[in-house]
């Protein structure tokens, strides 16, 4: 992408740059009017885009088929609109019905879907021996199996972590801590990459580096 030349693009670029500084004035300086200004603009625009896009989506998946002769679409349309009774204290009870359908679909899909990848496949992967014959592969195989068993035992919630359970649950917690440490490390990459993108934009607008 080259540095824009059109007037409106240039204005847009610089406004974007200024808004960025306004937002970063908060951590780098302190809460101030510029930050609040940028924050309110962001939330307003974000919300409006959301509404426009969702309006288009409802048109696409419901209204257009309805107008095209799929009269059954009137059912979800009416039930969907009825969720707005949540805003009217006297009619709030009506909104329980659309919520019930959403919840039912969410639970049904959630419960039927989680078992295979999160439990069964996880166990199968843990107990399938490595194809490598190297010692390291077998140590890892043992590590993951012992780690998983101890970590699951750590999450026994109606048994005290004493007696026989004391050692495995203690070890289980250590396995969990290693997991969280790795997670922390990965998150650092994620957040810094986002900031990196902004640093690049900061320099590009000033023409210090090419766009």
């Amino acid at each position, binding site marked *: 992408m080259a540095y824009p030349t059109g007037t409106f693009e240039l204005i847009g670029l610089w406004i974007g740059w200024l808004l960025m500084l306004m937002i970063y004035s908060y951590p780098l300086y302190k809460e101030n009017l510029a930050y609040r200004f940028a924050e309110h603009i962001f939330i307003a625009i974000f919300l409006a885009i959301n509404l426009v896009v969702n309006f288009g989506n409802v048109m696409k998946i419901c209204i257009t088929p309805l107008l095209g002769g799929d009269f059954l679409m009137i059912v979800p349309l009416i039930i969907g609109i009825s969720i707005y009774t949540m805003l009217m204290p006297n009619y709030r009870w009506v909104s329980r019905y659309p919520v019930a359908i959403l919840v039912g679909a969410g639970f049904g899909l959630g419960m039927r879907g989680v078992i295979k990848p999160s439990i069964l496949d996880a166990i199968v*992967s843990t107990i399938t021996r490595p194809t490598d014959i190297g010692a390291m592969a077998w140590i890892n195989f043992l590590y993951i199996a012992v780690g998983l068993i101890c970590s699951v035992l750590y999450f026994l919630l109606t048994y005290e972590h004493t007696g026989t359970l004391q050692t495995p649950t203690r070890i289980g917690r250590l396995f969990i801590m290693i997991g969280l440490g790795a997670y922390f490390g990965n998150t650092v990459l994620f957040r810094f990459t*986002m900031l990196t993108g902004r640093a690049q934009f900061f320099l590009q607008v000033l023409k210090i580096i090419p766009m």
Partner: protein
Amino acid sequence: MSGQNIFDKLQNIDRKVFYWVLFITLCVPFMFPLALPIKVVKNTSDLYDGVTGANIEPGDIALINFGYGVSAWSECAPGIAVCTKALFREGARIVFMGSHYDVELTYNKLRSDAAADFAGKTYGEDYVFLGYFTGGESAIAQLATDAWTVYPEDHFRTKVSDIPLMKDFHGWEDIALVLSSDTGDVGSYFLRQWQGAHGTLLAEIGIAMNGSTDYPYYLAGNYFGLSIGSRGGAELEVLIGEPGEATTSMDSINASHILIVIAVILANVGYIVQRRKA
């Protein structure tokens, strides 16, 4: 606090000092790039092999989900660009869709990032952009069984029945592989409702933060490949031999990562010395 020694100070540096140092550290490497070599790890090469090898035949349809918005462009966009290029070069057809309301911006960015590859392709025949969807897991489950009810029209409001590519895509059976790139949960919906339920080939081009939770699923074979954050993107750029945004950002990542480790070490030195004294 008048009696603060060096170790107290090490533990209590003002955070604003750090923020400024961090921002400057992120900026400087763009001006003086080092371009250190980037090592490719197995989960990334498995992903690349998956989109270039035996998984995909000319004419097959791949589904690419943009589960990220502008905020995660630096993390996800490079990986998606490389995979799109690779898939087009294998002769695959691609269906693009997204769960972020700003998906149009992301699609436009991809078209510009992989402009040369899009140039030789025809919209509606070789690729299609279905646009935004909501409905969470229900919508993804529905997409597997009856895609046309989730998307009766593409993003540009052409009826899917009038789009040649869409005549070959009604549900999971028509899709050779799915690539989902997410900041949120859509990849896990594909995992449960496509891969878990139907065994569809699935790979994740995720933000680094989700790398930890995604990796066990890669190890269990639920994902045939996995790209983790901008580093994964840079590795994919190495694999396709076209350095891009992710490769450029690696210098900044290097500097900032060293900085944070130094900060942690300094704070711990202060902490340990203080504890010994106490």
